[in-house]
Every structure is written in structure tokens, then in C-alpha cells.
């Protein structure tokens, strides 16, 4: 394990080249790329920096007591289904609160988007009640940055292993991870149905890479940090590299609550609470907001001032709108023989056979499948299908069987951008720092519900083709109930009246404010957004660096 570089220290009263808000996949990538271009960067992260010794296989902490995630108590949230409803207090948006952001505990699915994801609107047409639109950039423009990210962090996979894979300029830097039982069964099902399948591209090392060791197959991936450093989260990749540049300071446990602007309408710096709840002002020549698809719009709205009464970058009124999560349809199934999906990577094989679908099905969109096993024993025990015994010796027996002989069919899909689905500030509830709580308004579009049901039916077919003994469909509800892929709330576009940032992630309204994270997405993609978030960040940093060098910020 390499020692954590400490970076350097910047004066708060001297404007630093860039303040980056958030150390997740987007912010950390921005910091790495901007420092490589010679800029000074201060990264502000609300979460803590955890050492490998803190990264225990702690099921209680990971899933129940919010050890590494945003707190439902100090950071309460509210939810309502529509704008007509009064929001009720409940956790709705989840993310890892740590250096590395959500890549601290992610599963590491690293699908690229395909060309269709960037122009589905012009290819397939609009949907009533949805704000489907083309991205202002294409797959081809983003491709070099996908490749750069894959090689920067070490993605394991096999290029062009199935029909329909998008053009790529370089193969994956590492071979696929070990295949698991769920991966073999998905492949068997796809073979029988005539579907293509391929090794899952994963941000987990299959071989040693850049001095980091490969996966130990412990199985504690989803929701857990990786104590080996084999999972290529920003905390093990982009952040240490940025710090080693000598041009970056990382301040963890610093909670930014306001971006400040001057009379000229330019950003001058940020205000944050440090770990002792002391208010600190850091001056900056430019600010990069990468706090995630929920917290970025919240911070823009909280930063409203006399000049920008609707919040920063919000002359369009679109900040916080078009909240998307990626749809899902899941079914669980038991098989005859031991699978032991709790060992090895969560996902080892996927199919993209259903990536592009005909609108005659009654919806616009698509998705892909994996077969996986992603919960530890505690969560499996708490979530056995209701038809199973829930206590007693029979419960023990059935739990053992479900733990060793079951898997989950998981369809990851698009979800439509709907203007009324949003992040906003709760008018009543405050967090522990006295700031307005995050309010989510969300209801699934009927086309999406139709699509999830279609995917669940295909999932059943896959499971049957794989020889499942018993299949249990998880419910599909009008609201997903909890969201972790946080997308679309500061959408990019060429028209300042209908989008928040331009194609280079610069706020239409403020020349030295850049917003780079899942909030930039115009559409949701098919399910695995992190690689695209990082590719967007690499591309943004490339252009922003050039702007800065030309004095155009």
C-alpha cells in the first residue's frame, strides 16, 4: 500500500486558480487533470479521508448506521411525489460521504455510453411529459476521454467482445476479472436466447496496476470501501495523483454552503464550515462544482443573492430540474447448485442485447442486464422473499440456501428526464448546520414504468433459460424510493434558456463557474454513469485549462 501523499497548503485569502467542490469521481478527476496542466487546486470535501484500517467489512456500518454515507439525521431530507404534495421527511438520495465520493464504496460497473445515449431524441423522437433532448456533444467527441480514464485508473474488461459495442480507440488496459457463477449463468441464458454477452467492464484491478494490487475476491464491494485498494475509486486513483503533483490541497470534512459572486456577476470564492463548524472563506479565480447530482444544484440554490435571486446559474430556472436515477428491474432466483456469488466481484458478465429498443414497444429507452450477488449476509437475511419463513430453524435453512444458491437478475435502464422531477430546497426543514434540507420531487414517467415491466419480463426469461428453480420478482413502484445515481439536474446544452451549462460545463450565466458531475447529463444513459462522469470531467478539464491559459475565464 503506497503512503497517502499529503499535498500542500494554500492561503485562503489569496485566490487559488481553482476551487473544486467535491472529491468524488468528477471533482477528483478535475483536480488531477487541472494540476497536470499546471494549475493550483484546492479540493473541498465534506466527508472524511479514511485509511485502509477504517475499511472494515462492516455490514452494520455500511447498510444500517450510515458509517460512510450521507447522514439521514444531520443531513435530513424530504420527499414528495409531485409539486402539488407537501414533502415528508425521509432519506431519498444516497451517496458516500468520504474522500473519493461515491466511488469510495461503488460496485465499479464501468460501462461506456453508446452513441444512441447522446442523440436518442433525434433518433427516436420525443415523449409526452418528458424533456428528452440531444446532448450538445457526441460519443465520438467523448471517446478519447473514455479511453484516457480507463487507462488512468485501470479498468478490467475485453474490448469488442459482443455485437453493438461502440467504437474505441484502445483496448482495456487490463483483462477481465474472474468469472463468477452468476456470470456463467447469465452467459448460459444469453447463449440459449441468442443474445450476445461479454465480460463486465469493471473499475477493479484484475492485475497489479500503477503500484496497486489486484482484487482479492472478498465479495464485499457494493456499499463497502476496498481495503486492498483494488477498487479504482477516486480515493485510490485521481486524488493521490492530484496530491502528488504538488499543486493540490485536499481539505476533507469541509462543507461548502455558499458560492460567492461579485457585482460583475463573477464567482469570487466559496464559504464553508470546517470540521469544527467554523466558517471559512476560500478565495478562487474559478470554481468547479462537482458535489454530485443532488448536492450541486442544492448549493447553487443555497447561493442565491441579490444579483442572482433564483440561485446561481439559474436564469433558465432549470437548476435542480430533470432529476434522473437510472431505472431498474430486479428478480431473484434460486438454482440447483452452489453459486457462492458472495465471493469474487459482484458482476463479471453483462449483456447489452437490449441496449437499443424499438419505440413500438411503447417506451423510449433501453438497458442492459447483469446477474449478480451484491448483498452481505445481514441484508440477505433481512430481505428474504416474503414467501419464505422469516424466523426459526426453517429460516436458517432457507437463508443458507439463498446465500449460497441464489442470484439477482438486474436490469439497468434509462430513465426519462421529466421537468417536474427535481432537487430543491425544503422550505421548512434545516440540516445540522442550519442550511435548507434537500427536497426531492419524483414520480416515474409511465413510459419508464412500462419499460421496467418489460425488462422484468425479459429478466424472468433469462433466469428461466439459465435453469432457475424459483424466481421472485421484486416490486416495481411509482417511485424507486431511494436513489444513488444522481443525474441531470444542471443539464448541459447550447441554449441558455433551457440548460444550465454549455458544452464545456461552463455555467451559461457565470463565466468562471463550472459544473461537472452527474448533474451535467442530458439523458440518463443505460445504467452505469461513473465512467461517463469521469470522461466528461477529463474533457471539461481539457477545455477549461485551455480557456484559463488564454485568459478566457
Amino acid at each position: 500500500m503506497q503512503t497517502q501523499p499529503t499535498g500542500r497548503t494554500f492561503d485562503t485569502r489569496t485566490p487559488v486558480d481553482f476551487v473544486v467542490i467535491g472529491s468524488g469521481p468528477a471533482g477528483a478527476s478535475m483536480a488531477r487533470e487541472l494540476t497536470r496542466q499546471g494549475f493550483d487546486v484546492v479540493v473541498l470535501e465534506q466527508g472524511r479521508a479514511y485509511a485502509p484500517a477504517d475499511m472494515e467489512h462492516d455490514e452494520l456500518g455500511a447498510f444500517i448506521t450510515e458509517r460512510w454515507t450521507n447522514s439521514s439525521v444531520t443531513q435530513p431530507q424530504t420527499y414528495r411525489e409531485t409539486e402539488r404534495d407537501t414533502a415528508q421527511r425521509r432519506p431519498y438520495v444516497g451517496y458516500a460521504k468520504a474522500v473519493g465520493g461515491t466511488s469510495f464504496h461503488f460496485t465499479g460497473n464501468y460501462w461506456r455510453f453508446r452513441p444512441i445515449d447522446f442523440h436518442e431524441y433525434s433518433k427516436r423522437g420525443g415523449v409526452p411529459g418528458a424533456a428528452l433532448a440531444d446532448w450538445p456533444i457526441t460519443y465520438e467527441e467523448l471517446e478519447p476521454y473514455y479511453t484516457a480514464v480507463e487507462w488512468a485508473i485501470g479498468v478490467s474488461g475485453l474490448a469488442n467482445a459482443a455485437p453493438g459495442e461502440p467504437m474505441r480507440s484502445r483496448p482495456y488496459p487490463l483483462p477481465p476479472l474472474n468469472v463468477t457463477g452468476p456470470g456463467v449463468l447469465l452467459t448460459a441464458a444469453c447463449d440459449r436466447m441468442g443474445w450476445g454477452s461479454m465480460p463486465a467492464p469493471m473499475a477493479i484491478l484484475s492485475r497489479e496496476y500503477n503500484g496497486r494490487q489486484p482484487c482479492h475476491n472478498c465479495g464485499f464491494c457494493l456499499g463497502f470501501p476496498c481495503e486492498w485498494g483494488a477498487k479504482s475509486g477516486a480515493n485510490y486513483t485521481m486524488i493521490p495523483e492530484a496530491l502528488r503533483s504538488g499543486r493540490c490541497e485536499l481539505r476533507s470534512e469541509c462543507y461548502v454552503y455558499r458560492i460567492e459572486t461579485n457585482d460583475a456577476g463573477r464567482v469570487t470564492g466559496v464559504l464553508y464550515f470546517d470540521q469544527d463548524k467554523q466558517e471559512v472563506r476560500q478565495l478562487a479565480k474559478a470554481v468547479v462544482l462537482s458535489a454530485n447530482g443532488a448536492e450541486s444544484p442544492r448549493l447553487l440554490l443555497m447561493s442565491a443573492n441579490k444579483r442572482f435571486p433564483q440561485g446561481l446559474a439559474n436564469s433558465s430556472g432549470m437548476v435542480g430540474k430533470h432529476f434522473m436515477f437510472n431505472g431498474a428491474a430486479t428478480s431473484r432466483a434460486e438454482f440447483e447448485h452452489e453459486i457462492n456469488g458472495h465471493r469474487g466481484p459482484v458482476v463479471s458478465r453483462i449483456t447489452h442485447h437490449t441496449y437499443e429498443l424499438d419505440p413500438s414497444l411503447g417506451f423510449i429507452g433501453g438497458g442492459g442486464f447483469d446477474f449478480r450477488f451484491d448483498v452481505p449476509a445481514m441484508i440477505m437475511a433481512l430481505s428474504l422473499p416474503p414467501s419464505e419463513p422469516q424466523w426459526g430453524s426453517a429460516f436458517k435453512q432457507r437463508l443458507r440456501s439463498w446465500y449460497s444458491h441464489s442470484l439477482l437478475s438486474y436490469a439497468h435502464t434509462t430513465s426519462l428526464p421529466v421537468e417536474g422531477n427535481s432537487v430543491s430546497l425544503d422550505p421548512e426543514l434545516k440540516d445540522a448546520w442550519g442550511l435548507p434540507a434537500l427536497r426531492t420531487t419524483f414520480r416515474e414517467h409511465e413510459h419508464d414504468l412500462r419499460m421496467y415491466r418489460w425488462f422484468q419480463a425479459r429478466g424472468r426469461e433469462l433466469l428461466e433459460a439459465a435453469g432457475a428453480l424459483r424466481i421472485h420478482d421484486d416490486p416495481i413502484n411509482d417511485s424507486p424510493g431511494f436513489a444513488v445515481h444522481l443525474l441531470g439536474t444542471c443539464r448541459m446544452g447550447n441554449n441558455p434558456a433551457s440548460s444550465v451549462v454549455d458544452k464545456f460545463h461552463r455555467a451559461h450565466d457565470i463565466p468562471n463557474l463550472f459544473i461537472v458531475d452527474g448533474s451535467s447529463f442530458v439523458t440518463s444513459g443505460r445504467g452505469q454513469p461513473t465512467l461517463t462522469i469521469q470522461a466528461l470531467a477529463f474533457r471539461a478539464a481539457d477545455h477549461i485549462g485551455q480557456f484559463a491559459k488564454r485568459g478566457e475565464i
Partner: protein
Amino acid sequence: MTLSRREFLAGLSAMGAVWLTGAAACRDASPDAETHAPPADLLSGASPAFVHFSPADAADVEAITARIFPTDDTPGAREAGCVYFIDRSFTTFAADQADFFAEGLASLNASVAKAHGGGTRFATLTDAEQDSMLRSIEDSEFFGAIRFATIAGMFALPKYGGNRGYIGWQMVDQQSVMEYQPPFGWYDQPENQRALLGRVL
């Protein structure tokens, strides 16, 4: 249960909701270092003292946990020390649930006394009598909470008080030193891949 899988993973289990809310609340009230520090007596191997329950309450709670994960051909909640996990949860991350839990237990014992004679407590009933009592409260919030806490104690790291010697993990054949080598199960064995797929992935 109508909750989506995501909702469940968010920690909003209908059955455990009460216990859980307290868990989150108290986690925030106490510094991480405190919550996550292993109590010294749990690591020493000695039988720890109860920090919250009276001996009588502890006996009842232990008896309930032992009906949820009975000791049969493999060890159960009793051997895993789930009662110690629950006991400690009420002085740490589930402190604000202590009263609710105590009322639930008192109410259960009142039903026991009514059915089996004054002064009888849950722990003194036979296994069959205990099961029958628990079946009668299966849908209650109290049973949901103690079931949730028992399961949590069975699989949480031993430093939280339960899952002694990783008994819970052994129950599901989960090793405590987790470095696995393929094949992980039956289906990924090369000969079975060949039979299923005509090739080895």
C-alpha cells in the same frame, strides 16, 4: 412487502424501521471513533457484563433471539451472543429505542403471565410455548424490531457484541478472512462451464 429493493437497501425495512431510525439518530450523536471502537471486554474472550438489560430482561431477550436463530444442527443466536449486541445497541447507536423496546418486552411478558400464570416470564417457557407466543406477535413492531436487531447482531462485526467468533458468518459459510480463489462455486468450475456453455470463460 411492497418496498422496492432499493428502498430496502436504503434501510427502510418495514419490520426494522423503528429500531433503525434510532440507529441512525444515535450514530450521529456519537463520534465515529466511539461507535466503532471495539469494547475491550468483547475482545478479551471473557463473558461480558450487560450494560443495559437487567438479568431477567437479558434472559428473555436471549430466549427470543434463540427462537429467531435457534441452536439446531448449527449454532444460533445464543452462541453468537446476539443479546449482547442488542444490549450494547441501547447504550450506543439505538439508545433512543430503549424505552420502546422495554415496553414491548413488558407487554410480551404480560401476555405470558396471562397465558401461563402470574410471574411466568418468556424465558421460562418451553421452545414450543415460546414459538406460539412469538407467532401471536409476529406482525407487531416489537417483534419486527427484535427480529431486525437479532439478524443485525448475528452478522455485524464481533466488535459490536454479537457474531462471536464469526458464528453468524460461519452459518452461511462466509469466512472471516476473505480472500477467495476461483472457482467460487459449482457453475464456474471449468468442467461445468464446458458442460453449460461448450467453452470456458
